[in-house]
């Protein structure tokens, strides 16, 4: 449970990057972009972020059943907090 705030912050961090870059991309495409294209680009941005976050977020969840120890999960959390500057 201690890792929940880190999950929250890492999600927010990634979402900010995603929406900002997506906006810039749609701006560049101009007004004549159709809904199909808009949707494909949205799915692209979400897909990349989700797949990149999958590993780290999975390693922040400790369900007691698998090989991972609680210590390791907390080390992952500390490393992510450092690397993404999430403590603030």
């Amino acid at each position, binding site marked *: 449970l201690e890792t*929940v*705030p880190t999950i*929250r912050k890492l999600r927010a961090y990634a979402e900010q990057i995603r929406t900002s870059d997506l906006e810039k991309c749609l701006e560049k495409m101009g007004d004549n972009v159709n809904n199909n294209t808009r949707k494909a680009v949205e799915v692209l941005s979400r*897909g990349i972020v989700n797949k990149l976050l999958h590993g780290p977020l999975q390693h922040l969840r400790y369900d007691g059943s698998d090989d991972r120890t609680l210590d390791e999960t907390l080390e992952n959390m500390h490393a992510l907090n450092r690397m993404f500057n999430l403590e603030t």
Partner: protein
Amino acid sequence: VNVSNTDANVIMGEDDSKKENQENAFFEFKTALELAQKIKDPIEEKKAARGLGASMQRQGKHREAIKYHSMVLSVSEREGEDSGNTEAYGAIADCYTELGDLEKAATFYDQYIARLQAD
């Protein structure tokens, strides 16, 4: 009378900016939701519900936000089609985190994380 009206407008104008825009957004999404339910368009219904949830979150109303994000999950269940569920699970978990209910947040994050690698 004129002066006090203007004052009121100034104050309202100052209250504008982000929050006012959120309220405009709220009413737009609300209208969209009702319309989507009337014409039975589940995809638009989910989009409107997600928009309402996001708008509530930005206003700090996390309980209401959970209600709207959960609507996405119900529509998915009703329609047997799960688009938007990953984001809904994540958003609901975010709200529970903000509300300090880390147990519930963890449950929803687990659902969210389990879906991250799908396309």
